[in-house]
């Protein structure tokens, strides 16, 4: 059974230094509030897994929480580069960042394999690509039935996955909809799973076949409305496209980035304070 906890308590109890952490959400439902809380609590030496690192991992990497990144597309969608990721890869700032690079199909399959309790995923991939030359974990396997040579990649099995979703009920059952990405697979692949939600309700009223994660498959559920900002929660919040643009100059420079983290993350007690501070700053403009 999932406990209903504050996000600060959930991160304190279930995210440990050195953990392999997946904060998933494919453009939609990115668990930004949890990323902020991990920075606030100064977690260290994390191996971060995410198909699209996005702003959430740019922040964690720049803040010095990460030792390694496992990913498949590292850009600021619709804007350009992730400058903190690039600075870590190109100039080892604020510390060296080991990268393990895959394709989307590979990582999506690797999450499916993780959720399936399998050690590796098999897919038709990478023939002719240079990625296997720089990632020794991309190997091949020969089909015992047809002889076809296929790609084999290790499954993703995080110590902890964090996702954001629309609704939970009071027992901690979670309902999500819209673009699901690899949320369900990432949740079920992990040893522990925290879900932040827009609202907690008496009854999910979930349609048959809806994407429901049962409380007994989760570790903690936290009520964090708007917790996916600047990503969105379908039916609740809109994507804040302007923030994705505004992030570019903030992250471009080490000084402005550090000042932003100090003011907006370390200078706030929780996500609702962060939201209030951001809203005040946006209004002042």
């Amino acid at each position, binding site marked *: 059974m999932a406990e209903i906890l504050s996000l600060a308590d959930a991160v304190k109890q279930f995210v440990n230094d050195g953990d392999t952490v997946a904060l998933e959400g494919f453009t939609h439902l990115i668990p930004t509030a949890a990323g902020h809380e991990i920075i606030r609590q100064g977690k260290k030496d994390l191996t971060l897994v995410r198909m699209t690192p996005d702003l959430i991992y740019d922040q964690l990497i720049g803040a010095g929480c990460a030792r390694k990144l496992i990913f498949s*597309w590292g850009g600021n969608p619709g804007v350009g580069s992730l400058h903190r990721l690039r600075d870590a890869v190109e100039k080892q700032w604020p510390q060296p960042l080991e990268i393990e690079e895959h394709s989307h*199909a590979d990582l*999506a399959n690797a999450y499916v394999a993780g959720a399936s309790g399998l050690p590796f995923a098999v*897919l038709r*991939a990478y023939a*002719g*690509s240079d990625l296997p030359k720089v990632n020794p974990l991309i190997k091949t396997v020969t089909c015992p039935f047809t002889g076809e*040579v296929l790609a084999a990649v290790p499954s993703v099995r995080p110590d902890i996955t964090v996702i954001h979703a629309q609704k939970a009920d009071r027992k901690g059952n979670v309902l999500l909809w819209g673009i699901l990405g690899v949320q369900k697979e990432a949740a079920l692949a992990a040893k522990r799973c925290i879900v932040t939600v827009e609202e907690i309700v008496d009854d999910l009223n979930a349609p048959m076949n809806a994407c429901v994660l049962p409380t007994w498959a989760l570790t903690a559920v936290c009520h964090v409305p708007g917790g996916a900002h600047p990503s969105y929660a379908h039916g609740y919040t809109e994507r804040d496209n302007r923030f994705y643009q505004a992030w570019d100059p903030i992250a471009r420079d080490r000084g402005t980035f550090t000042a932003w983290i100090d003011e907006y993350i370390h200078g706030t007690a929780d996500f609702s304070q962060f939201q209030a501070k951001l809203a005040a700053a946006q209004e002042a403009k």
Partner: protein
Amino acid sequence: MAYSTNEMMTVAAARRLKNGSVCFVGIGLPSKAANLARLTSSPDVVLIYESGPIGAKPSVLPLSIGDGELAETADTVVPTGEIFRYWLQGGRIDVGFLGAAQVDRFGNINTTVVGDYHQPKVRLPGAGGAPEIAGSAKSVLIILKQSSRSFVDKLDFITSVGHGEGGDSRKRLGLPGAGPVGIITDLCIMEPEEGTHEFVVTALHPGVTCEQVIAATGWAVRFADQLGTSAEPTEVELNALRDLEARTAAAHGQTPGEA
């Protein structure tokens, strides 16, 4: 009507999508051209985005690969793993529509790194869905602006394979799809030469000279014997494109980048 070279590129790319074909769409330029096709010559083209929407019909261009409107207007939304497993690897994609940072003469694509992988000059975003789209879609179209920096003699990194080293490379690699069948740029259209699978210029856009194309290509580019000229964008095409861009700007307060 007067038009820009970028508009010519988008229109020329849109014309390549047959009505009713199933198209796996990359974000940025491919998404713009694919939606223009849907709004003009190919109303029944099926647009699939890697985030999960199948049959998306957005009224404005998405800024990200997972914009809510893609989900709202789709016939169905499936998990990302299913997109790659059942729909792409399962062999149901007619056209993979890709952008690129760099291409070479065989339509191989680099979106990973300029310079050495471990000591990069420029670190690019990486693979995304492109390697498997390039491998498994029945055919591939590539759209990008042409310059000697983007059309290079030798790629520092092959992220997504086109025709490999040319000739029967794809066959030897065991790739199921036919690979890239067209590169559409702001200057011209290139298609693979039979046999060698080297991309040669088959049509220049109106007003573009061979010299311009040569100057904007990092390899010794060749021209087809039967060199054609692209038809100018029609008023219908241009109006549809400009309306789409105006709706997008009004909705998002910005036009989509190419990231």
